[in-house]
C-alpha cells in the first residue's frame, strides 16, 4: 500500500491487497470513502433542487443516491470472509460508484431522468454483479446526462449537476460525469460508466483519470438502460491502468443474458502490464490533429487545428513512448473518421428513439396525473412530463432520419459511411497491411473541460465534444483515455489510445508504461481543487 496516500486515494489493487491480507479492513475503507463523500460531495442532487448556494457551488455533487448501509454490511461480510481464511476476491473492499444508468437490485435506478425518478431496479446488471462478486463494494449511484444523452452531465434531471473536481466552475464531461468526478475526487476507487460516443473517455479526460471503452461485446450490456444498442459499451473508470485491468477482468466475458456479449476467451489483463512498449508500433494520424469542428459563434463547420496544449501533450506522450522503445508511425491516414459525428447524429438518434419507446407510463416509470382522454393521450402527457429536452430531441431526430421518405438520404447513408470508418481502422491495424499498428495515439478531446453553461443548449457544439472519441464506437474497437498533463488553466488533458478488436491488453500495457515513465513528472503530483478546499 502507498503509505503516503489516504485510503480513498489509494489505487484499487493496493486496497484489495491490504484487505485480502487483513492489513486493512474493508469497513475502514468504506468508512473512509463515505467520509470523503461527506467532505467534498455537497448536497444530493434532486429533481426539485431549489437555488444553489455558494458553499454547494464548490462541491462535486457526483452521487444521486448513496447505499451507505448496504456498503457497510457488505464490508463486514468481506472482513468476516478474511477472518475465516477465505479469499473475498481480487477487488476485495474496493469502493465502487455506479453510473445511474445501470440497474442494481433494490436501488433507485433513474437514468438521471424524471421518467425513472422513482424506479427501483428488480435485478442487477451483469457488469455490476460481476464486480461485486469480485469483492468490490457498491457505494452509490452517480450522476450522468439524462439517459446518457450529453457530454457535460448538465442535462441531468437531478440538479445540481456534477462539477469538475479540478475546477468547480467547469463541467466534468459526460455522460459518465459522476463516474469520472467521483473517482478523481476519491469518492470511489473505481466506477462503471458507459461509452456510446466517448462517454467514458471524454469525462475521464476532463477529470484527469483513466477511462476504458472495451471492444463492443467484451462486456455484457444486460441491465444497462439502453441508449444506442449497437454502440453502447460498459467500461471502467479508474485512477490507474492497473486498476482498469483489474476491473475489466472482473466485468468481461460471455453472458447468457446478452447475445451480443462475445463468447471469446478473456485474457489476463494484468499479466502483460509490465512488459513495456519496446517493438510496439503506435500510429499518429493527421486526421486527429486537424479537425472539422463547428465555429462556436457562427455554427459553421470548418477545418481547424486543435489547441496547441492538447497537441503538445499528445506529442509528448508519443515521444515518451518512443524513448521507451515504441516505434512511432507518423502520417497514418484515417480519411473517413472526420464524418464520425454526422454519422453519429443519425445512427444514435434512430437507436435512441427506438429504445425510448418502451417508456410509456405503463410498465414502469412516470405516468401523468393530469386528466386524460384515452391511452394515447396518457402516452403523450406521460412522455412529455417525464422526458427532458435531450431525450425529446433524440426521439424527434430519430423519427425524422429513419422515416420512409428520408431513410436513404440519412439513415442508410450513415450506416454505409460507418462501414468506411470501420475500414479505416481495419486497414491500419491489419497485421499484413502497410501500417501494422498495435495502437493509435490521439488526443481524447478537442478542448479541456469547458465552463458550466458555456455549451449547454447548443446541441451541435455539445455533440462535437465527442469528435475524437466517437469513431471507436462506430468501429467497435477498444479505446482508452489516460491523463497526459494539464493546460495553462490547471485543467487535465486526456490522451487516447485506439486498439484492434479485442486487444484491450495492449492499450492497458501502453497506458501502464506511460504512467511509469511519467511517474516523477511534476504534473503527476497535482491534486484536484475539490480536495484542497
Amino acid at each position, binding site marked *: 500500500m502507498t503509505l503516503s496516500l489516504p485510503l480513498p486515494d489509494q489505487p484499487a489493487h493496493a486496497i484489495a491487497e491490504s484487505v485480502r491480507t487483513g492489513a486493512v479492513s474493508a469497513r475502514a475503507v468504506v468508512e473512509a470513502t463515505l467520509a470523503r463523500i461527506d467532505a467534498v460531495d455537497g448536497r444530493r442532487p434532486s429533481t426539485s433542487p431549489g437555488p444553489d448556494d455558494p458553499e454547494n457551488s464548490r462541491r462535486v455533487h457526483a452521487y444521486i443516491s448513496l447505499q451507505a448501509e448496504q456498503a457497510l454490511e457488505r464490508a463486514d461480510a468481506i472482513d468476516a470472509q478474511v477472518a475465516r481464511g477465505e479469499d473475498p476476491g481480487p477487488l476485495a473492499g474496493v469502493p465502487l460508484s455506479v453510473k445511474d444508468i445501470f440497474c442494481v437490485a433494490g436501488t433507485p435506478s433513474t437514468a438521471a431522468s424524471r421518467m425513472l425518478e422513482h*424506479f*427501483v431496479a*428488480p435485478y442487477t446488471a451483469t457488469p455490476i454483479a460481476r464486480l461485486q462478486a469480485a469483492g468490490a463494494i457498491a457505494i452509490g449511484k452517480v450522476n450522468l446526462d439524462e439517459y446518457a444523452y450529453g457530454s457535460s452531465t448538465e442535462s441531468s434531471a437531478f440538479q445540481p449537476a456534477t462539477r469538475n473536481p479540478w475546477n468547480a466552475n467547469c463541467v466534468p464531461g459526460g455522460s459518465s460525469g459522476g463516474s469520472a468526478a467521483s473517482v478523481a475526487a476519491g469518492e470511489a476507487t473505481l466506477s462503471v460508466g458507459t461509452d456510446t460516443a466517448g462517454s467514458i473517455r471524454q469525462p475521464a479526460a476532463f477529470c484527469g483519470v483513466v477511462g476504458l471503452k472495451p471492444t*463492443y461485446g467484451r462486456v455484457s450490456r444486460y441491465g444497462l438502460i439502453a441508449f444506442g444498442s*449497437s454502440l453502447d459499451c460498459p467500461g471502467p473508470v479508474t485512477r490507474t491502468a492497473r486498476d482498469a485491468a483489474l476491473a475489466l477482468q472482473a466485468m468481461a466475458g*460471455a453472458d*447468457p443474458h446478452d*447475445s*451480443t456479449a*462475445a*463468447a*471469446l476467451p478473456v485474457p489476463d489483463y494484468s499479466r502483460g502490464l509490465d512488459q513495456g512498449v519496446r517493438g510496439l508500433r503506435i500510429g499518429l494520424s493527421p486526421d486527429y490533429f486537424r479537425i*472539422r469542428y*463547428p465555429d462556436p459563434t457562427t455554427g459553421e*463547420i470548418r477545418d481547424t487545428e486543435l489547441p496547441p496544449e492538447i497537441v503538445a501533450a499528445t506529442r509528448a506522450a508519443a515521444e515518451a513512448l518512443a524513448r521507451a522503445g515504441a516505434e512511432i508511425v507518423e502520417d497514418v491516414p484515417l480519411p*473517413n473518421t472526420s464524418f464520425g459525428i*454526422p454519422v453519429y*447524429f*443519425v445512427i444514435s438518434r434512430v437507436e435512441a*428513439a427506438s429504445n425510448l419507446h418502451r417508456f410509456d*407510463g*405503463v*410498465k*414502469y416509470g*412516470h405516468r401523468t396525473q393530469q386528466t*386524460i382522454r*384515452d*391511452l394515447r*393521450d396518457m402516452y*403523450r*402527457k406521460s*412522455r*412529455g412530463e417525464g*422526458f427532458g*429536452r435531450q431525450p*425529446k*430531441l433524440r*426521439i*424527434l*431526430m430519430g*423519427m*425524422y*432520419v429513419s422515416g420512409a421518405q428520408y431513410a436513404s438520404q*440519412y439513415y442508410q447513408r450513415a*450506416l*454505409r*459511411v*460507418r*462501414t*468506411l470508418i470501420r475500414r479505416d481502422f481495419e486497414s491500419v491495424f491489419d497485421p499484413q497491411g502497410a501500417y501494422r499498428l498495435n495502437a493509435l495515439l490521439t488526443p481524447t478531446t478537442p478542448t479541456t473541460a469547458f465552463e458550466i453553461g458555456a455549451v449547454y443548449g*447548443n*446541441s*451541435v457544439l455539445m*455533440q*462535437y465534444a465527442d469528435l475524437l472519441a466517437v469513431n471507436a*464506437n*462506430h*468501429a*467497435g*474497437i477498444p479505446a482508452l483515455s489516460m491523463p497526459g498533463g494539464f493546460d495553462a488553466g490547471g485543467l487535465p488533458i486526456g490522451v487516447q489510445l485506439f486498439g484492434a478488436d479485442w486487444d484491450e491488453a495492449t492499450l492497458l500495457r501502453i497506458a501502464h508504461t506511460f504512467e511509469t515513465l511519467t511517474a516523477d513528472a511534476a504534473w503527476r503530483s497535482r491534486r484536484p481543487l475539490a480536495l484542497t478546499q
Partner: protein
Amino acid sequence: MADTITPELFDYLVELAALELASDEAEYLRHQLNQQLTAIRELERIAVPDDIPAAAHGVPFTAAARPALRADEPVPSDLALALLSGSPDSDDGYFIVPEIQHQDL
C-alpha cells in the same frame, strides 16, 4: 436557408413520437433539429461507392465470437412480482391502463 423541419413537419414528428410539448420547448427543439441537420449534411461531402454495404455494428460477429443460442425452454422467474411493482398501476398480475378507444381500421 429555409428550415428543413418546418412547423408542420415538426408537429407531425411530435405526434409520431407521442410527445406533448410546451410551446417554448417546441420552438427550442425545432431550432436544434434544424441546426443538427446542418451537421448531418456533412455526409453529403463524402462519396460512398454503390458497393459499400450498410454496417449495423462495428465488430464482426464471427462464429467464434457468437454465443450459442440457449435452448428454447421456459425457465421460472421470481421477478414477475418485482417487475409489476414498478408499474404506475397494476392489479392481480395485470398492468392497468386507461380505456383504449375503439377505432375502425
